[in-house]
């Protein structure tokens, strides 16, 4: 080994430590016997048992899941429509404005988004009586306003690389525009739409700032619960919860990643075979 590769190895180790040491520590402490988070008191799984008896955390997790799923679905529908409008409808009146509005939440400070949504909800309740109070509805609407922007960008960039002559060919073969969308465009951009859905789900799942503006009594999402518990001192069952979440995410991404790699390999092989069989 020469000096250069020593340096590279050292930097790699440092990089991985920087990224994963906090998570490893957290996982380790989730098996801590002691109630004191930073003092090792022996191995135990009792905090996992504790976690599953904690109705507050379980309720918050279920609420977060429901909101994230509803938000992701709504944001995907709206974001896909916005992406389509921006990528396929040419230079219609008000297009620059829509581009700006659709993507503004990407750069807007969350505090501003949260505050302005809160003001809107209060004003609406006074004017038309809806939404009644603040809770699951207002949180979902608030999450959709910013996660829709991410879906829009993902769908729009997928459409930008989609050969427009595919849609023209379908129209040329007798399909009306609505049929072209459902038979050709939608199936081809479906992976991008699914990616947008997952992105919107994740954004909603761990949002704290905007949620804390528009949440109401009795509708605390998981991040809100964790944050308020941590302010009173970290309890080890939070570590257990976090460990389970890390495990879920890691499993999902690993399985999905392996599946994608296998698909790509199979496809590459088929393409090569097709080229080799060229007469």
């Amino acid at each position: 080994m020469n000096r250069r590769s020593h340096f590279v190895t050292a930097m790699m180790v440092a990089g991985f430590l920087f990224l994963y040491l906090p998570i490893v520590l957290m996982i380790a402490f989730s098996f801590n016997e002691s109630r004191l988070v930073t003092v090792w008191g022996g191995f135990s799984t009792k905090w996992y048992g504790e976690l599953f008896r904690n109705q507050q955390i379980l309720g918050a997790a279920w609420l977060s899941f429901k909101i994230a799923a509803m938000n992701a679905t709504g944001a995907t529908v709206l974001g896909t429509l916005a992406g389509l409008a921006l990528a396929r409808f040419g230079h219609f009146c008000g297009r620059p404005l829509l581009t700006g509005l659709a993507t503004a939440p990407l750069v807007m400070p969350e505090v501003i988004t949260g505050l302005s949504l809160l003001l809107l909800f209060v004003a609406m309740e006074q004017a038309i009586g809806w939404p009644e109070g603040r809770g699951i509805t207002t949180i979902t609407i608030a999450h959709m306003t910013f996660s829709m922007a991410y879906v829009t960008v993902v769908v729009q960039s997928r459409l930008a690389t989609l050969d427009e002559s595919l849609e023209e060919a379908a129209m040329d073969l007798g399909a009306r525009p609505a049929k072209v969308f459902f038979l050709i465009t939608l199936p081809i951009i479906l992976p991008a739409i699914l990616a947008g859905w997952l992105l919107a789900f994740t954004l909603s799942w761990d949002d704290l700032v905007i949620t804390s503006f528009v949440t109401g009594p009795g509708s605390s999402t998981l991040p809100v619960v964790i944050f308020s518990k941590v302010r009173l001192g970290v309890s080890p069952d939070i570590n257990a919860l976090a460990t389970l979440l890390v495990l879920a995410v890691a499993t999902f991404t690993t399985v999905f990643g392996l599946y994608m790699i296998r698909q790509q390999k199979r496809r590459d092989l088929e393409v090569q075979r097709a080229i080799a069989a060229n007469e």
Partner: protein
Amino acid sequence: MASPRPEQKNEPWKDPGAQPYVRLEKLTKRFGDFVAVDDVTLNIYRGEIFCLLGGSGSGKTTLLRMMAGFERPSEGRIWIDGADVTATPPYERPVNMMFQSYALFPHMSVQKNVAFGLRQDKVAAGEIDQRVTDILKLVRMEQFAKRMPHQLSGGQRQRVALARALVKRPKLLLLDEPLAALDRKLREHTQFELLNIQEKLGVTFVVVTHDQEEAMTLATRIGVMNHGGIAQIGTASDIYEYPGSRFVADFIGSVNMFEGRLVEDEPDYVRVASDELGGTFHVGHGVSAAPDATVWVALRPEKIVLSRERPDGDGDNRVEGVVAEVAYRGDQSIYLVKLATGRQMRVTQPNTLRTGTGERIRWDDRVWLSWDSSSPVVVTQ
């Protein structure tokens, strides 16, 4: 450049009573200030393979897209088989198109791709199967029906795209650079296959291409396009042998172009004096131009005879020069000959004798160039 197509037996464009199958009338397309297609009027007859030939930006693709219905003309009308389709959307036109990128639907098998158009028309399932099988057989792709597009080679994709465009039996098939994505060997082979299929089905083809060899091989007639307008319409040999303008002469094949002055103007011949040539052209056809007008003479490189000895006869249609470059191309050699006036002339000669046998013309040889009076063409614009 020889056409594989036997001399056309019927040439409907020469018959003033013939009804055009497709008629474009004063068609204009503007994108903002830019005029993509400028006042094009064109008649295409049933069973023709009409090639629109032009460089990029000549408007040929826009013209094709207007026939398909993807672009609405700014002015003018389009008639197909007697019906005005100017305002008909693409999904209701009796026209199909084969795209340059082939545009095969990546999430459908070959069979489903080809069946797509018939499904839109609500054709009965049994008939769809039969017609898809027949057309795949015609393009020799029947054993690939289950494959997905990414499992096909370029040539196979091209044939599937052709089958998909033909299966609806359109009145008019539009082909946008149909062979551009294929390599040279495959392209030549596919040209003849395309001719075969067209002959079998009798569908009228309009082909857009920038490749003049492709246009000459395929077309019954060629429309040369320039700046959004049609510069000349004619058969391959019309356009090559009798170009109507400097642009067409220069665009098709290579040519030696000389500026000159009309010095003798008779009904059956003209003489053109050219300072660039340092001599006089005797041209065996009449010209409609004012006496003393500035004209241009186009002379194809392969119509010039190269010799060391001074040719017999009078002093027209000949010039002396020095060989500046020789390029050996196997079947022929290209000579660049520098004239006394400083102009270079391009001459191609077939290599009828094997290299090394006989006496070859080399660099710096003094040579005579001469040509027949039927070879030069006078153009006035």
